[in-house]
């Protein structure tokens, strides 16, 4: 039975979680910080790509929507890769293995959907290093709780900013699935599936900060901006 709400893991606990803590002090922040930041639209990356190479799929979407969709895609890449790797390693059993199997398929479907909508404006998938949490059931469980609560909060923050109703409908339909995922894994981890009457949103900058603190992203997305022309020497 899930424990009391006061014991529940909240978003703020994410970077304190034991499974992640040991990776927290690692260096190399600079090499990976670009991935989600660019996706969040804080930099010029996504917007720049769109401006130089207007994607047919999203030619009529606002630049804000494209940035949000790419931000969502970045989170889906992270989650899909996490579950896919956990399943491939095969250290999970029983209910946890079932969760990883089902949820992994969902996250991969989300990735495909966002890539299809974004077309050539879609950010590339970065490289991930999950630092052992995908081959340890306890670490997997803690990380999955954090990821799913994080994704739910991230979608919640972004949804009201989406201009297109079609994209908004899609984002909302995914937002609630992420919340289901969160409830599912929280229960398996012994936490209350629904610990609070209201779920709080989380800003993109805070989401980026949290994801970067895990150092799971090891290689930032290649710079596809056409403004960075090839350099010729000699």
């Amino acid at each position: 039975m899930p424990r009391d709400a006061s014991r529940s893991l909240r978003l703020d606990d994410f970077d304190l979680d034991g499974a992640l803590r040991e990776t927290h002090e690692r260096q190399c922040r600079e090499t990976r910080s670009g991935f989600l930041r660019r996706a969040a639209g804080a930099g010029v990356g996504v917007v720049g790509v769109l401006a130089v190479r207007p994607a047919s799929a999203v030619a009529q979407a606002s630049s804000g929507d494209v940035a949000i969709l790419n931000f969502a895609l970045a989170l889906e890449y992270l989650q899909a890769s996490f579950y896919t790797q956990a399943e491939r390693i095969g250290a999970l059993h029983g209910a946890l293995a079932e969760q990883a199997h089902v949820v992994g398929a969902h996250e991969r479907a989300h990735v495909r959907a966002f890539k299809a909508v974004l077309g050539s404006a879609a950010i590339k998938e970065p490289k991930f290093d999950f630092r052992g949490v995908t081959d340890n059931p306890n670490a997997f469980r803690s990380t999955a709780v954090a990821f799913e609560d994080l994704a739910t909060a991230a979608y919640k923050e972004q949804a009201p900013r989406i201009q297109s109703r079609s994209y908004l409908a899609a984002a909302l339909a995914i937002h609630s699935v992420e919340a289901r995922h969160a409830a599912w894994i929280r229960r398996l981890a012994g936490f209350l599936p629904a610990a609070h009457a209201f779920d709080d949103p989380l800003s993109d900058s805070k989401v980026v900060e949290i994801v970067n603190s895990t150092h799971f992203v090891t290689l930032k997305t290649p710079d596809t901006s056409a403004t960075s022309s090839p350099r010729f020497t000699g």
Partner: protein
Amino acid sequence: MTIRVGRNGTNPEGASQRGEVRWGTVRMSRAGLFARSAAVLGALGGSAVGAAEFAAAAGSQRTPARDREIFGLALLIARLEAAFYAHALAGGRLTGETHQFASVVGAQEKAHVKYLTTALGSAAGKSPGFRFGDAATDPTKFLATAVSLESTALAVYNGQAVNLTPQALAAAARVVSVEARHAAWARALAGQVPAPVAVDVPITVSQAESVFRPFLA
């Protein structure tokens, strides 16, 4: 399961691009009839809530008035759910995690009622009466009903949320994901996969009404 969002933001079922938004079963509700009150509901025959009320509203506006209609619907649903869990707990036959579920979720539904009542002010109106019978008190039927109520609430919220102003959506979304957690928890307790599909397909108000109406006294 693939996400049914087509390129250019249209849905793959061929909805027009002239401002009409359809996604899955979503249509813009012009009137939000179910939201007004149970009294209005009672005056409507089931079949009367149909094409006229749910005609696609090309160019429909997101307005504070519409926000109130949708919040009114949310309040009616939250009141129904809160009453359902209170009735279930009063029945005294729930045990273990099922009892915990009813207790935790019931308290959260009460919090939703309080929040929405405050948000709506004088427009909140009085709560209608509800009747659940053994759908709430029989442990097996309780879980099946909880799955149905929570899943339906979530699906209609997802359908209506696109009609909210951004500010109202930000507020509503804090409730929507909690309903999703309730639905997942109820499904787990009922022995079902908590998240059965990759996207939660929204439903229309009339579809939701068919689920909720039998519980209106």
